[in-house]
């Protein structure tokens, strides 16, 4: 086979790395405050997240964009890291399956969040 007949395939890593990076930014800047609010301040009664206000926020396109960004991007970030951490932990079985599994999970979460937001 001559050198020139080799077919090169574009790597998919830049796409996943881009989503990982976007998720890393969201998880660094927004997620700590969100965990503090929904996980601690609201359950402990310091702040309120009443249905009417949140529903109104999720009803306009600006709110929808914020909500999908804080749900979907960190999920891509987490799934990318977990997939690669499996290799770090020397769990190297069925790489192809786990690639589809982890990135597929992030994809499903993205589609689900988008569908819910459209439904509001």
């Amino acid at each position, binding site marked *: 086979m001559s050198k020139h007949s080799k077919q090169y395939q574009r790597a998919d890593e830049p796409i996943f790395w881009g989503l990982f990076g976007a*998720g890393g930014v969201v998880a*660094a800047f927004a997620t700590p405050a969100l965990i503090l609010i*929904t996980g601690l301040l*609201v*359950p402990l009664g310091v702040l309120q997240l*009443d*249905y009417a206000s949140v529903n109104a926020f999720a009803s306009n396109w600006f709110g929808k964009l914020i909500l999908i960004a804080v749900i979907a991007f960190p999920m891509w970030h987490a799934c990318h890291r977990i997939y690669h951490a499996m290799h770090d932990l020397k*769990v190297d079985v069925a790489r192809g399956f786990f690639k589809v599994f982890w990135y597929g999970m992030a994809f499903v*979460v993205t589609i689900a*969040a988008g569908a819910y937001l459209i439904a509001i």
Partner: protein
Amino acid sequence: MSKRKPYVKPMTASWFLNNRFHTLYMLREGTSVFVGLYSLILLWGLAALVKGEAAWNGWLGHLQNPVYIVFHVIALVACLYHAITWFSLAPKAMHLQKGDQKLTDKPVVIVHYVAFVVASVVIIGVVALGGAA
């Protein structure tokens, strides 16, 4: 078929415990488990929001369970650790120049911390003032 039998240095799955730098690296990667689980909790809340007021209040009720409180305390610490590592890596990921000189790391990191404080105050402020409506 190649007949060579290269020496592969044996490596246990706990390799990262032998060196502090590698342990902190794995700790950083581990924060992603909490980031992912929190995304799922938010998705669960969004599903409840779509279902209606009763389901929404049900979701808020679940989050009052001590198990979730403990989870969120750990998730908050994990997420803050992720943020610290992310900010310290930022100047290495972006190449900012002033004239011929590369900008030093420190101002880039400081700007990230300032932006973090501003973002956190805005997010908490919007919820506190009910500005979401």
